[in-house]
């Protein structure tokens, strides 16, 4: 059975009057629609697995999904996980319905490249969205590793070579070394701004 994909960006396109130039104005509504869809599917479907995708804007999450995950027998939620509250609610829902939970977290090797893609894509958002999602998704990841030991976390590095987006899995010996690595890549918003200017 192919994966069921729940994507906030896909829901934007279903809202009347949507235009990519004003994508930011449709985000709250589309996120709510995606949350409702997730609640329904996680409760009703027979899938035993949920894969959450997370990471900052334009880090390559959706591209990763369509390159590697379409054949997975799972519910896939394409998000950023910019808040611990939102992430926690979804993980708890998956736990409530006895789903195995994975988090695939996408980290761009070059945050400036991700910012260039963010600015160049058709869906336009305020630049604050970029800084916030790249900063807060990393702190959410740290929070998840500390609070949800049952969540299987995969760290995926995106990189851009010969005009193509590619991926590597970052492999660490154990959860403790993963925790240390995640701590080392925490940045506040001002640090993200400095990295892309």
């Amino acid at each position, binding site marked *: 059975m192919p994966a069921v994909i729940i994507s906030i960006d896909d829901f934007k396109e279903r809202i009347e009057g949507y235009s990519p130039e004003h994508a930011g104005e449709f985000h709250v509504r589309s996120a709510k629609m995606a949350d409702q869809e997730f609640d329904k599917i996680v409760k009703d479907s027979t899938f035993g697995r949920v894969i959450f995708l997370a990471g900052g804007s*334009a880090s*390559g999450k*959706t*591209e990763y*999904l*369509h*390159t*590697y995950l*379409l*054949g997975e027998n799972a519910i896939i939620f394409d998000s950023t996980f910019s808040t611990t509250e939102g992430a926690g609610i979804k993980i708890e829902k998956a736990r409530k319905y006895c789903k195995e939970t994975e988090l695939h977290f996408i980290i761009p090797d070059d945050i400036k*490249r991700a*910012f*260039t*893609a*963010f*600015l*160049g*894509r*058709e869906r336009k958002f305020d*630049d*604050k969205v970029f*800084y916030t999602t790249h900063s807060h998704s990393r702190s959410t990841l740290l929070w998840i590793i500390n609070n949800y030991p049952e969540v299987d976390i995969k760290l*995926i*590095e995106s990189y*851009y070579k010969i*005009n*193509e*987006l*590619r*991926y*590597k*899995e*970052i*492999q*660490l010996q154990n959860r403790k*070394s993963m925790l240390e*690595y995640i701590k080392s890549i925490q940045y506040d918003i*001002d640090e993200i*701004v*400095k990295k892309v*200017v």
Partner: protein
Amino acid sequence: MTKKELKPKNPNNNYLKSYSKAIKRGQKIQQVFPHRDGWAVKKISADKASNVFVNKESAIAKASEIARNQRTEVLIYNRDGKISKRILCGAK
């Protein structure tokens, strides 16, 4: 820590192509930002500013001229490094 290359299961899909297009479009964007000698104009993908002007208006005018010719846009930055204004110049 080791890094393992992931072989694409679905290579050359439209999402990967769109990402490459976004990067190409993004690389052409002109930036106007504070410089020690005034205000600089720089293409995002360039290492150095193409022009530096004493006043901000002249820098914006130059960046807009380049952006019009290249069908891209201009980003004007504050001193804190955040974008204060975005000017579309027939960008597609």
